[in-house]
C-alpha cells in the first residue's frame, strides 16, 4: 500500500451525518406530502442559487475530509512506515498550492516578496531590495509582462470555465428550468476556471507570514467551518429533540427537571461557558499527549470536542422551542384520539409529535449553521476555538490581525477570510430563509385548505 486511509474522529462523524442525510432523503422521497415543501424550495431561485454556492463549498469540504497518510520508504524490518503528515484528497488535488510556499508575506499577484532582503546582484553588490518570489509568477522572464499574463490567464481559464459551465447548464437544463440558477452556474464555473488557471502561476490571494498561499488556507478553512456548523447539530439535535419533546409531553416532574437543567445551562453566558469548557478540555488534551498519534489527530479531536461543547451549550434554545410546540401539540385532538385508543406514550411521541415538529428542527438547524460558522471565528480569536495549528477562518483572522499595524498594511489574509466567510454565511442565510418560507406551517395550511 502506498497510502493508508485515515479516518479522523471528525471524518467518522461527517460520514455518519452523510448517512443520516441520505436516509432522510430516501424517507422523504417516498412521501409526497413531505416532498411538498422541498418542491416549493426548488421553485425559489434564491434557494437554488444559494444551494449551488453551498454545494461548491460542500464538495471542497468533503474532498478535504477524505484523509490518508502517504507511505514512506520501507524500514529494515519490512514494515511500511507512513508519514506522520495526514493529507486529504483535496490537498492532493491542489498540491501546487500547498507546496509552493514563499519565505513570508507577498501581496496578491505579486512577483516580489513583501519584505526587503539583502541580495547580491549581478555585479556582486549587496543591495537591500524586494526579492523575486520563488513560485509566484516565476515563469515570467520579463516582469512588465505580469499584468498581460494575468489577463491572458483570466481569459483562457474563463473561456474554458465558461464553456464547461454552458455544457453543465445544458445537461441540467432539463431538470432545472430557472434561468437565474443556470446563469449563476455558468458564472461560478467560469470563476473557478479562471482561478484555477491563475492559481497555477500566481499566489492569487497572496501569501501569509510563513509564506503559505492564502487561497489554499481559505479553501482549507471551509472544511473547518462546515464541520463546526454541521457536527454541532449532531449533539444539539438529539438532546434538544428528546428533552424538549419529553418535557412538553409528560409535563410534571420530567418537565421540572428538564427546565431546571436548561435554565442552569442557558443562564451562563455562552461565551463564558464555552471558554470555561474549552480551557478545561485543553488541560485534558495537554496533559495527555500520549493519546494522539499525529498532530492532525490532536487538532481534530480538539475540533470535535469544540463541536461537542458548542452543542452542549446551545441545545437549550431549540429545546425550549420544541417544548413549547409540544405543549401545543399535546392538546391537539389527534393526540387525544390516540390516547383514547390507549396508544403508548412512546408511540405517540414518535408517530404523532416528532413528525409534526420536524419542520421546526429543520428551520432551527439551517438557521444555526451560519451563526456557528461566524462563532468559530470569534471563538478562535478569543483563544477558545480550534487548535492554533488547524487552518480555519478564525486562525487566519487571528494571525493576520497582528499585522494590522504594518505599513503598508497586510490586508489580504483578512480580506480573503472575510470574503470567504461572507459568501458561505450569506449563502447559508439565504438558504435558511428559503427553507423557513417553504416549511412555514401557515403557508402549508392555506395550501391544503384551498
Amino acid at each position, binding site marked *: 500500500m502506498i497510502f493508508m486511509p485515515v479516518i479522523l474522529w471528525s471524518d467518522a462523524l461527517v460520514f455518519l451525518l452523510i448517512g443520516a442525510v441520505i436516509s432522510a432523503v430516501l424517507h422523504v422521497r417516498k412521501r409526497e406530502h413531505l416532498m411538498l415543501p422541498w418542491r416549493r424550495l426548488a421553485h425559489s431561485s434564491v434557494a437554488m442559487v444559494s444551494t449551488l454556492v453551498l454545494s461548491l463549498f460542500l464538495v471542497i469540504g468533503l474532498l478535504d475530509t477524505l484523509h490518508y497518510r502517504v507511505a514512506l520508504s520501507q524500514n529494515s524490518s519490512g514494515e511500511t512506515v507512513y508519514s506522520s503528515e495526514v493529507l486529504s484528497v483535496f490537498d492532493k488535488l491542489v498540491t501546487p498550492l500547498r507546496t509552493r510556499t514563499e519565505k513570508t508575506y507577498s501581496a496578491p499577484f505579486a512577483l516580489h516578496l513583501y519584505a526587503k532582503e539583502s541580495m547580491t546582484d549581478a555585479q556582486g553588490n549587496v543591495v537591500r531590495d524586494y526579492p523575486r518570489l520563488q513560485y509566484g509568477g516565476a515563469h515570467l522572464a520579463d516582469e512588465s509582462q505580469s499584468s498581460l499574463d494575468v489577463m491572458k490567464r483570466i481569459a483562457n481559464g474563463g473561456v474554458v470555465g465558461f464553456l464547461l459551465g454552458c455544457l453543465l447548464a445544458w445537461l441540467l437544463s432539463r431538470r432545472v428550468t430557472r434561468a437565474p440558477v443556470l446563469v449563476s452556474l455558468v458564472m461560478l464555473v467560469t470563476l473557478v476556471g479562471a482561478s484555477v488557471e491563475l492559481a497555477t502561476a500566481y499566489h492569487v490571494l497572496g501569501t501569509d507570514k510563513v509564506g503559505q498561499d492564502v487561497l489554499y488556507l481559505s479553501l482549507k478553512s471551509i472544511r473547518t467551518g462546515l464541520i463546526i456548523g454541521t457536527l454541532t447539530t449532531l449533539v444539539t439535535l438529539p438532546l434538544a429533540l428528546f428533552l424538549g419533546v419529553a418535557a412538553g409531553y409528560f409535563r410534571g416532574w420530567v418537565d421540572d427537571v428538564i427546565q*431546571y*437543567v436548561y*435554565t*442552569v*445551562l*442557558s*443562564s*451562563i*453566558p455562552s*461565551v*463564558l*461557558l464555552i*471558554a*470555561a*469548557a474549552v*480551557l*478545561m478540555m*485543553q*488541560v*485534558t488534551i*495537554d*496533559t495527555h*499527549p500520549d493519546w494522539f498519534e499525529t498532530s492532525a489527530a490532536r487538532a481534530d479531536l480538539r475540533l470535535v470536542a469544540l463541536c461537542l461543547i458548542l452543542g452542549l451549550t446551545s441545545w437549550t434554545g431549540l429545546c425550549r422551542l420544541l417544548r413549547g410546540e409540544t405543549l401545543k401539540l399535546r392538546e391537539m385532538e389527534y393526540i387525544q384520539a390516540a390516547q383514547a385508543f390507549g396508544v403508548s406514550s412512546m408511540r405517540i411521541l414518535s408517530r404523532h409529535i416528532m413528525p409534526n415538529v420536524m419542520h421546526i428542527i429543520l428551520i432551527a438547524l439551517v438557521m444555526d449553521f*451560519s451563526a456557528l460558522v*461566524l462563532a468559530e*471565528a*470569534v471563538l478562535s*480569536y*478569543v*483563544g*477558545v476555538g480550534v487548535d492554533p495549528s488547524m487552518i480555519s*477562518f478564525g486562525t487566519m*483572522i487571528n494571525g493576520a*490581525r497582528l499585522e*494590522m499595524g504594518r505599513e503598508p*498594511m497586510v490586508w489580504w489574509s*483578512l480580506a480573503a477570510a*472575510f470574503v470567504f*466567510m*461572507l459568501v458561505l*454565511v*450569506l449563502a*447559508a*442565510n*439565504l438558504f435558511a*430563509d428559503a427553507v423557513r418560507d417553504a416549511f412555514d406551517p401557515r403557508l402549508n395550511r392555506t395550501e391544503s385548505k384551498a
Partner: protein
Amino acid sequence: MIAYLIRRILYAIPILIGVNLLTFALFFVVNTPDDMARMQLGIKRVTPDAIDKWKQQRGYDKPLFINTSSSSAGTFTDTIFWNKSASMFVFDFGYSDDGRSISHEIAKRMGPSLAIALPTFIIGLVVYVSFALLMTLFRGTVLDWAGVALCVLLMSISGLFYIIGGQFLVSKLWHLVPISGYSGGADSFKFVVLPILIGVVGGIGSSSRWYRTIFLDEIGKDYVRTARAKGLSELRVLFTHVLKNAMIPILTGVVVVIPLLFMGSLLTESFFGIPGLGSYTIDAINAQDFSVVRAMVFLGSVLYIAGLILTDISYTVVDPRVRLS
C-alpha cells in the same frame, strides 16, 4: 403578582446553586488541580514540589468536599468547594493569579464596560426598532425588499470584520478618533464613539429583521383590522396599536440582556483596549487564569438571572394581562 415575583426570585436560588455546582465540576472534577498545575507550569518543569507549591499558592491543596483532617466545622469549610465555590454566593471571588482581588477588579472595570455597552444598547434599540418600523410601513414594496436584503447581508458579515474594518476606516484612514485606548475623564468620548458605532451597526441585520417579523406578525392580527376600520391612519395604527403589542415579545429578548451590559463585550473591549470586564475576561482566558474565569461565569449567570426577573417585572408594566391577573 407579588407572590409570582417572589417565587421567581426564590427560583433563582436553585439555579445559581446549579451553576455553581456545574462550574465546580468543570474546574475541579474534570481535571484535578494537579493537571492544571502541570499545564500551567509547562510539562517540562514539572516536579512534585512545583506542583505542590503552585497548589498551595492558590489554595488548591485542600480536599474537594470533606476535609477529614480538620476539626468540626472545618470538615466542610476548609475545602476547595467551600473556599472556591460556595464563597461566590457572597461575591467573594478570591484572588487572580497575579494576586489581585477579583472583586475589586470587577468593581473597577464595570464603569468602562458600561460606558460602551449602555449607549450601544440604547442607541441600538432605537435604531433597530425604527428601521424595522420603516420596513413594516413599506411592507411588500421594493423598499421593504431592499431593507430585508440589506439585513441579510449585514448579518452575514462577521462581527470581527465590523471592528477591524471600522478601525481601519475611521481611525487609520480618516484619523477621526484614536484607534484604541480609554480614559476615564470627559475626553473619553473620542474613545467610546467608534466602539459604540460599530456595536450598533453590527447588530442592525439580525435585530431589525427580527423586529420586522414581530411587527408583521402583529399587523396580521384582527385588532389591527379593527383599528383600521375605525378610520385610523396607517401610521397611527402602527405606532399606537402595533407598537404597543409588539413591545411585549421585543421586551422578552431585550430586557434580559440589560444586567449583562455590565459584563461588557469581549471583542470590542479587547480590540479597542478598553479596561472593562470584557477585556478582563479575555485576558484571563488567554492567561488561563481559572479563578477569574470562574468568577466571571458566576457573575454572568447572576446577572442573567437578574435579567430574567427584570423581564418578568417589565411584563407587568407593559402587559395588563400579566399585571392584573
